[in-house]
């Protein structure tokens, strides 16, 4: 029997409104505005009020997937990461690092974007890293 709110930042537009995710026993049941935040000041738009609704949607990917004979099948993390490491490594050594392109994300955190561009530049060895800022 657990009910609490976690204050976080809305995943939609760039306004950066804070919102509270209402959690009951591990299930996000709703959203409350953050009354002490300088942008929303206790209000949200319809997207913010519904920012919880896709999080535990049944369509969420739950395991890694690997394409085999044309179709995607479930795989373990170990197998999937092994394959990715292997493939990226061999393409890099065969065609050079610039044969790899990396897309960072306007929906991921700063820390994640930092890490991905570091991965791209330091591990793959390419500046081919971009994201959809223009789209």
């Amino acid at each position, binding site marked *: *029997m657990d*009910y609490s709110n976690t204050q976080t930042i809305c995943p939609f537009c760039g306004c950066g409104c804070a919102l*509270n995710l209402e959690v*009951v026993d591990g299930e996000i049941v709703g959203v409350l505005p953050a009354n002490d935040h300088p942008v929303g000041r*206790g209000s949200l738009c319809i997207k913010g009020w519904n920012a919880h609704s896709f999080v535990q949607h049944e369509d969420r990917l739950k395991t890694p997937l690997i394409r085999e004979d044309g179709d995607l099948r479930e795989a373990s993390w170990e197998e999937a990461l092994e394959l990715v490491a292997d493939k990226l490594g061999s393409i890099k050594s065969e065609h050079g690092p610039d044969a790899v392109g990396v897309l960072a994300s306007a929906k991921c955190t700063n820390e994640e974007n930092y890490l991905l561009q570091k991965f791209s530049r330091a591990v793959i060895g390419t500046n081919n890293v971009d994201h959809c800022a223009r789209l």
Partner: protein
Amino acid sequence: MIQEIRDLVSEKLKKLDGVVALRKTDQGTAPTLFQEGDDVSQLVLEPRYPVAKTVSKLQKRFKDAKFGVVARGCDTRALVEMVKRHQIDPDRLYIVGMACSEEQAETCYCAEPAPDLDPWPEADLVGDPVPGAPPNPMVAEYENLSREERWDFWNQQFTKCIKCYGCRDICPVCFCDACSLEDPLWVEPGLLVPDFPMYHLIKAMHMTTRCVACRQCETACPAGIPLTVLYDLIRKDVGNLIGYIPGADADSGPPLSLTLADAPIDSELAK
């Protein structure tokens, strides 16, 4: 007052399954369910959140649990209306009533800043009740406007509406699973600005006999629409015509669901 409430909550947590109140952490402040062993020093009293709604949600989910809630005057009025509409079980609820200060009452134009705890089987009051604050001056000003001026005023106000449904979502006495505002028969979906008068008048009509004047809808309105000017006017009519003040009288049911014998209205047509 805060220490008194924290002590009371700690004490009561020994017997209750939890107490709904605001918790302040390094993330911010929001409602939470305090349970025995939790750090009650994180319990705070500001800002306002619709705790009556939270209590209703939790009572429905945990059907045997008995909860407590730290409630202001407006919260207890909302709880009263929710009991009448079978959204709250009063026998499974303990209330720590918190008397608002004069300043708090003034900010909210609150007529009854102290919670009325008489109807509740189990409740305690903390703080010294202060008298009601004067009403929103905009209401009196509004009554002097001509029909055209009124139309222009609301036209302008509702043009700002961004259809967030925040006024409904924050409202402590709105609870229906199926909402008229989301029914395409009444309100054309997907339109911005939402249809006036449909969207706003349906909402206002649904508030007539249940608005407890907590004014959280105005706080939640990103566009700053003074919704409670409209709701205060219609509340006054409900008081004058039907003699009903939402949240005040725990014994009489929602008047729009009752017969004329049980809830008469002052009208020629009612004879």
